[in-house]
C-alpha cells in the first residue's frame, strides 16, 4: 500500500507542476474526467493522436516555409490553425499560445517570424511529449501496483 500511496503522491505532484508551469491547462483535467471504466485509456489515446498530428503538421509547416520561391502562407496558416485546434482540445497551453503568435506572423506574411515560431513550437512540443510520457508511465506504475489513478482537481 505504501508503494501505491507514494506513487500516487508523486503523480499528484507531477500533475500539479505541469499545470503550474503552464504545460497543461484545465482542458486536460476535463479529459482526465472523461476516462472511466468504459474507456480506460482515453487520455493516452488522445495524447498519442495529438503527437502524431503534431509531427505531421510541423513537418508540413517546415516544408512550406523552406520554399525559397514563395512561401504559401495560406497553407502554413491552415496547418497552424489545425495545430492550435488540437492543442487547445488536449489542453496543451504553451503550444497553443505559440500557435496564436504563429498565426499573426502568418497573416503578416513574415517568414522570419514564422520560422522562429516554428522552432518554438517544435521545442514546446517535444517538451510536452516528454512530460506526458513521464506522466503516463507513472500512471501505469500505479495501476500495476494495484492502485487507482487519483483525480486531480
Amino acid at each position, binding site marked *: 500500500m505504501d508503494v501505491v500511496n507514494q506513487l500516487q503522491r508523486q503523480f499528484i505532484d507531477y500533475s500539479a507542476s505541469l499545470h503550474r508551469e503552464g504545460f497543461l491547462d484545465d482542458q486536460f483535467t476535463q*479529459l482526465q*474526467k472523461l476516462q472511466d471504466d468504459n474507456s480506460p485509456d482515453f487520455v493516452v489515446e488522445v495524447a498519442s*493522436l495529438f503527437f502524431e*498530428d503534431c509531427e505531421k503538421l510541423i513537418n508540413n509547416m517546415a516544408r512550406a516555409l523552406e520554399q525559397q520561391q514563395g512561401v504559401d502562407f495560406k497553407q502554413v496558416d491552415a496547418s497552424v*490553425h489545425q495545430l*492550435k*485546434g*488540437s492543442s487547445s*482540445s488536449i489542453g496543451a497551453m504553451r503550444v497553443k499560445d505559440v500557435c496564436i503568435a504563429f498565426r499573426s506572423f502568418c497573416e503578416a506574411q513574415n517568414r522570419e517570424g514564422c520560422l522562429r515560431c516554428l522552432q518554438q513550437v517544435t521545442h514546446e512540443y517535444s517538451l510536452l511529449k516528454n512530460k506526458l510520457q513521464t506522466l503516463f508511465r507513472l500512471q501505469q506504475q500505479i495501476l500495476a501496483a494495484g492502485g487507482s489513478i487519483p483525480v486531480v482537481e
Partner: protein
Amino acid sequence: MESCNCIEPQWPPDDLLMKYQYISDFFIALAYFSIPLELIYFVKKSAVFPYRWVLVQFGAFIVLCGATHLINLWTFTVHSRTVASVMTTAKVLTAAVSCITALMLVHIIPDLLSVKTRELFLKNKAAELDREMGLIRTQEETGRHVRMLTHEIRSTLDRHTILKTTLVELDRTLALEECALWMPTRTGLELQLSYTLRQQNPVGYTVPIHHPVINQVFSSNRAVKISPNCPVARLRPAGKYMPGEVVAVRVPLLHLSNFHINDWPELSTKRYALMVLMLPSDSARQWHVHELELVEVVADQVAVALSHAAILEESMRARDLLMDQNVALDLARREAETAIRARNDFLAVMNHEMRTPMHAIIALSSLLQETELTPEQRLMVETVLKSSNLLATLINDVLDLSRLEDGSLQLDLGTFNLYAVFREVLNLIKPIASVKKLHVSLNLAPDLPEYAVGDEKRLMQTILNIVGNAVKFSKEGSISITAFVAKLDTLRDSKAPEFLPVLSDNHFYLRVQVKDSGSGINPPDIPKLFTKFAQNQSTGTRNSGGSGLGLAICKRFVNLMEGHIWIESEGLGKGCTAILIVKLGMPERVNESKLPYMPKMPTNHGQTAFPGLKVLVMDENGVSRMVTKGLLLHLGCDVTMVGSSDECLRLVSHEHKVVFMDICVPGIDSYGITIRIHEKFTKRHERPLLVALTGNTDKVTKENCMRAGMDGLILKPVSLDKMRSVLTDLLEHRVFFEAI
C-alpha cells in the same frame, strides 16, 4: 121455270149506282187486303212492337172486312146460294172479329196514348238536362277562369304585377268595359284610384272613404251591385244612355303602414281596397250569380297574393337590414381584432421595453443608496427608489392583468410549503402593521396540510394583497388571518352561484379569512371592489397608493385556481372580512415534496444522462474530434464521427438528434452544410439540431450561425459539465446560443 137457288139482287145490275158500288167495293177490298200487308211489312221492319196479338186481330178483322167486300162483288149479279152463304159466313165472322177487336181496342188505346205522354215527358226532361248541362259548363268555365286568374295572380310576387294581372284577367273572363282598383291613402280617409284597365295612368283621383255605398261594400265580404252613379263608378266618359251594371267588392289588405287609427273608432282595424267592375254599356248584360262568385273569389285571391307580396317585401327589407348589420358587425369585429392585436403587440414590446429601464433605475438607485451620500441626497434617492418600485409594481400589475384577461396566463404548479407561505406573508406585513400599531395574528388549522401543490408565487401574491389591503385600510385595531381546509358545507355558502366546488381525492380547498377592524366598506360598494381601476371614491381621503388593480388581479388568480374570493362587511366603520377559497392539490409523497423542484440539473451524472442519444460530430481536426467524442460518450450518447462535410451529409439521418459542427476550420463551409441539411430535412421534427463549435469569440460568427439556420453555438473548450448542461438546454428548448 127453273127454280134456282140464286139470289137476285134487289136492284138491277145495270143501274149506275150499282156500278159505282161495284167499283168501290172492289177498291175497298183491295185496300183492305193491302193494309194488313203493309202493316206486317212495317212491323216486321221495326224491332219493337209490343202488341203482336192486337195486330193479328186487327189484321184478321181487316182481312175479313176485305173478304166481305170482295164477296159482295159477286152479289151484284145473280149469284147462287153458295155465294150468298159464303157471304153470310164472311160477314158473320167479320162481325165477330170486329166486335172482339173493338173490345180489345178499349184496353189498348189508353196504353198507346200513355206511351205518347211518356215520350213527351222524356223530351221535357232532356231539354231540362240540356239546360243544366249548359249551366254546369258555364260554371266550370268560370272555375277554370278563376284558377287561371289565380295562377296568374299568384305567379308573381310583385304588387303591381299582381294587381294589373287581376284586372286584365278579369276583363278577359268577364268581358268588362272598365275595371278599377281603389286603394286607401296613407291617411286612410280617402280612396285613391290606383289601377284601371283602360286608362293607362290614372291621375290621383280620390274619393272620401266615408261614403255609404263604400261602407256597405266594406261591411260585407260579397260582391255588391252598386249604382253606376256612385262616385267610384263614375269612370267612363259620359254620354252613354244605358250604363252597364256595376259591381264592387272589397279586397282586404295587410296592415302595413303604421298610421294611427284612433280617429276611426267605428271601423275595424282592417284596411280594404275597393275593386269596381263595370259591364259594357248598352249591352243589356246582367251580372250573373256565378260571375259575382267569381269576382268574390278573385278578390280573396288578390288579397292573399298581396299579403304574400307584402310579406316578401318585408322579409327582403329585413334581410337587407341584416346584411348591413352583418357587414357593420364584421367591420367592428375586425376593428376589435386589430385593436387587440395592436394592444398585444404594444404589450409585448412594452413588456420588455418598460421593464428593462425600470430594472436599471431600481438597480442603480439601490446601488447608489449603498454609496456615501449626504442626508439630502439619501432622501432624494430613497424617494426615487420608492417611486420606481411603485412604478415597477404598477407595470407588472398591468401586464399581469392583461395576460390574465387574455387567458394566456398559466399557473406555475409546484409543490410548496403552505405554512411557509403564511409565515412569509406575516413577516412581510409585520413591519407596516407595527408602525400602525396594528396587531396581526395568524391562525392555521391543525388539519391544514404542510405541503400543497399549486402556484406558490401567485398564491402568496394574492394573500399578501388581501392582508395588505386589510392593513392599509385599518387605522387601529387588529388583523386576524385564519386558514383551514374548507369542508363541503362551508364551501356551499360562498354566495356565488357559479362556484361549484368539486371534491376529489387529491385536491383540497384552502379557505383563508382575513378579518380587520378597519373602516369597513359600504355593502353596495362591495361588487365594485373587484372591478379593475375602480377606486372607491366615497370613503374620503385615502392614501391608498393602489392602482385599483390589486383585487381585480387577485380575483383572476383565484379564478384560475378554481376558487372564489369575496368580501363581507357590515358597513362603514365596522371592519370587513375578506374570504378566499382556492383549490390546491395534495402532494403525492411527503419525501418527494420536500425536494424543491429544479428542472435544470438532472440528479444523476454519468452514463445515463442522455442514454442512446444519437449524435453526429463533424470535425476535421482529429484530436479535437476525439475529445468531443469522448465527452459525448461519457454522457452516454451514441456518437458518429465524420471528418468532412460530404461524409457528414451522407451519414446524417433523422435518427441523429444533434449534429455538432466545428466551424472554425477555414476549409469547411459549415454554413453551406447547414443549408443543405435544412433542405434535406423539411419537417422540423425530423431535422437534427445543428450546433456549432467554435473558438471564435466574436459576434459576427454568432450572427452568421443564427442566420444560416443553426440551432446553437458553443465556445470551445467544452467542459463535461458545460456539455451536459448544453445538451439538457438544447433538448428542452431546441436552441442554445452561448453568450459571447
